[in-house]
């Protein structure tokens, strides 16, 4: 996507003007006021504070209560929320946000630039996962007046990167509630206070969370819904039953089993799709420990990639929910996707030839060598893929032993103890490669940091491209740098992205104006309503 600062500013002010018009003004039906939307919560969160924890499980709840500076629209472009406009200085080191006026916190106090300053300096930069990385070069936030916040960086910060990242990493909690307390223990972490369309009411641990309409919301006469209830249901089959009986109207981020998603797809009562979750793509990965002699040879890594039939796996294990990946940047991210094809198509013969060439001939029992595979069980498909990898590699003479651990155990084993040969799990793409993708390839991550390069692999060229792209302020040059980077890491494959997938949501069709932005489940639902049954 090409977006100059001027264009960004223009569209920003255009949106600020249109901000009071609900998006539903474009839809055919007249929205109905009132009603309760019941949504599924699959795993309970420890704290409900998006300024301390960046996670879809947290956003699912808090984004209705606490607002960010910006959000994404239906095309994935940043649009104003608490910030009304933004501008970057020519050197890219200063970014000025104009803030919305007349916004009050749920406790009645006014929202000002001091809140933004506190969140950026004390919470995002010090505590927020991925935020600490994003804001590591943030020196100060100046607040010349109550409605202006000036972010000062010691290195150029691409405006596009910052805006995209701030949708997730730019939530604002009230300074007056958090300042001077131990932020990790603040009671507002489980009883959130924000500026959003809904006010927190009740949190029954293990059961439900309730939020109700905020009558003083800054978007006049919105939201439409009276209440939102999130029900905690951990069993995926029970989620399907709750949807079918109407106890739930929405389950997102693959809260249903793959089989139930496939089944409910044909049920006229529900919409099962990836619409409105495009901003959160993920991959099934295969990570190589290149400290292992065999795997330090790129030919062996390529042979393994050629030996696994991604298409077959997707068709037969994932009910067709996905496609073979082309690299670490998904095709659903037009701003960065370089447009390449999957680099290692399934080819058993080529795999065997590569292994022979690398000097690992099959022994008398047909085995070349053995590997230890650690699955990191983010989802139900990970153990399936582990078994599929085991069988696929057996066919080219690599014996695979699967080590079963729970998530915490697997993370420690892979990322801290390096006690693995290959590992498989998920890579989550968060709108911009610099947020959580390039750390999988950049050298220098301290031992123990999960989902970072702990493969014993390093490339100066790749490191350089990553650093350059992270501070390149011209969007077109940035995209080109990432294209080079994708090419370089696809060639070396320290990590192989096997599939490219998107999360599915199942929504009762009674719910209107749903999934109309690219991160709807993590957005504020101010224009969502429920049709009379």
């Amino acid at each position, binding site marked *: 996507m090409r977006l100059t600062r001027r264009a960004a500013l223009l569209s920003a002010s255009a949106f600020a003007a249109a901000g009071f018009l609900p998006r539903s003004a474009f839809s055919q039906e007249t929205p109905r006021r009132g009603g309760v939307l019941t949504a599924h919560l699959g795993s309970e969160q420890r704290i409900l504070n998006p300024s301390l924890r960046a996670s879809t499980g947290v956003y699912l709840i808090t984004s209705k209560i606490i607002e960010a500076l910006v959000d994404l629209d239906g095309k994935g472009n940043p649009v104003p929320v608490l910030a009304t406009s933004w501008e970057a200085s020519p050197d890219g080191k200063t970014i000025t946000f104009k803030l919305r006026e007349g916004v009050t916190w749920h406790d009645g106090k006014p929202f000002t630039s001091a809140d933004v300053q506190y969140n950026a300096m004390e919470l995002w930069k010090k505590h927020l996962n991925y935020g600490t990385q994003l804001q590591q070069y943030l020196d100060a936030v100046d607040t010349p007046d109550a409605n202006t916040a000036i972010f000062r960086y010691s290195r150029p910060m691409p405006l596009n990167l910052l805006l995209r990242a701030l949708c997730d990493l730019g939530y604002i909690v009230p300074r007056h509630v958090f300042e001077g307390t131990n932020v990790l223990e603040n009671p507002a972490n489980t009883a959130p206070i924000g500026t959003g369309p809904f006010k927190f009411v009740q949190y029954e641990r293990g059961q439900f969370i309730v939020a109700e309409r905020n009558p003083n919301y800054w978007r006049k006469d919105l939201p439409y819904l009276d209440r939102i209830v999130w029900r905690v249901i951990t069993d995926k089959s029970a989620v399907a*039953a709750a949807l079918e009986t109407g106890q739930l109207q929405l389950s997102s981020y693959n809260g249903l089993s793959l089989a139930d998603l496939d089944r409910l797809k044909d049920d006229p009562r529900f919409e099962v799709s990836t619409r409105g979750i495009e901003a959160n793509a993920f991959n099934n990965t295969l990570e190589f420990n290149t400290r292992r002699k065999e795997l330090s040879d790129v030919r062996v890594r390529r042979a393994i990639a050629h030996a696994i039939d991604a298409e077959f796996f997707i068709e037969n294990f994932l009910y067709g929910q996905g496609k073979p990946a082309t690299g670490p940047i998904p095709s659903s991210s037009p701003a960065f996707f370089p447009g390449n094809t999957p680099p290692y198509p399934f080819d058993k013969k080529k795999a065997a030839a590569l292994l022979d060439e690398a000097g690992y001939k099959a022994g008398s029992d047909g085995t070349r060598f053995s590997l230890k595979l650690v699955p990191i069980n983010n989802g139900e498909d990970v153990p399936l893929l582990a078994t599929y990898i085991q069988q696929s590699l057996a066919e080219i003479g690599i014996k695979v032993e699967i080590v079963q651990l729970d998530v915490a155990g697997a993370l420690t084993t892979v990322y801290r103890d390096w006690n693995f040969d290959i590992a498989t799990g998920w890579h989550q793409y968060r709108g911009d490669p610099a947020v959580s993708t390039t750390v999988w390839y950049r050298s220098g991550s301290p031992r123990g940091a999960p989902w970072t390069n702990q493969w014993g692999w390093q490339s100066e060229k790749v490191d350089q491209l990553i650093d350059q792209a992270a501070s390149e302020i011209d969007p077109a040059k940035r995209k080109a740098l990432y294209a080079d980077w994708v090419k370089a890491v696809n060639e070396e494959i320290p990590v192989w992205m096997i599939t490219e997938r998107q999360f599915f949501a199942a929504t009762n069709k009674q719910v209107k104006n749903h999934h109309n932005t690219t991160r709807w489940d993590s957005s504020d639902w101010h224009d969502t309503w429920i049709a009379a049954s």
Partner: protein
Amino acid sequence: MRILLLALRRAASSLPTLLILLIGLFLLLQLAPGDTVDALVAQIGGGDPKMIEELRRFYGLDVSVAVQLGRYVWRLLQLDLGFSAIYGKPVSAVILERLPATLLLMGSSLSFAFAAGMALGVFSARRVNKWPDTIISTLGLVFYATPSFWFGLMGIVIFAVHLGWLPAGGLEEIGAGYTGLRRILDIAWHLVLPTLTLALIFLATYLRIMRASMLEVLTLDFVRTARAKGLSPGRVVSRHVLRNALLPMVTLIGLQAGTMLGGSVVVESVFALPGLGRLAYEAVVQRDLNTLLGIVFVSALLVIAVNFIVDILYARLDPRIVT
């Protein structure tokens, strides 16, 4: 007075056991790879080293295991179960929150299973090897062999999804604001399916034990004497046989009540009930040591209490047993 002394003696002798249990579990859990910060990072999809280090300090995981254990035991001696890493509040509060639902679910299914198991056991023992006995025994075996999640899900599919008679899950109607009797009825309504699901498995055990025990007692001399006295068959069973046959049942309920607080992870998950079983499971997965040890502590207390009650019951049922 004698009972009080007995209770005190029991308590004194179980204290060391309790302490060993807790310390053993603490050490055992150190063997599991990963700690609660790893689990948290896994849940939120990643984090950077600085934040991880900060969190380790926050949860008190930056010191050696020996120091952590020392801190834990010291707190325990002051009757403080510590802070739950998942819930961010005292473990005692977390457990107390979950206790009512667990006791309600387990209490009602155990009583139902006990009553129904007893009735069916007596019934099939009196018609041993005839068709009612065969049917009941076969059903018992089927219940026993079927996994509870399957029963639960099938119950939901039939009674909630297709027939729409019962709710699919949850403890009560959320946000309905019921109070008093209406609320009690609402909760009872929600607990019908989970109680039955859980009870069916217990039921099978009680049924078989009761049947076997009845058959055994029926062959004893005093039963023949009672019959010889000219007592009606019903009176023989209710006054003489049943009372003696109940002893193994009481033993069994004592054993099973001990596991009550552990709850049933499966049934609680399928029916989305906020019980201790799911809490314990969460605590293991998220490596929340304090919560897990807290649950073990409370369960151990319950086992001690229940065993004490069972001992007293023995004496009531069979005066020959002196406590």
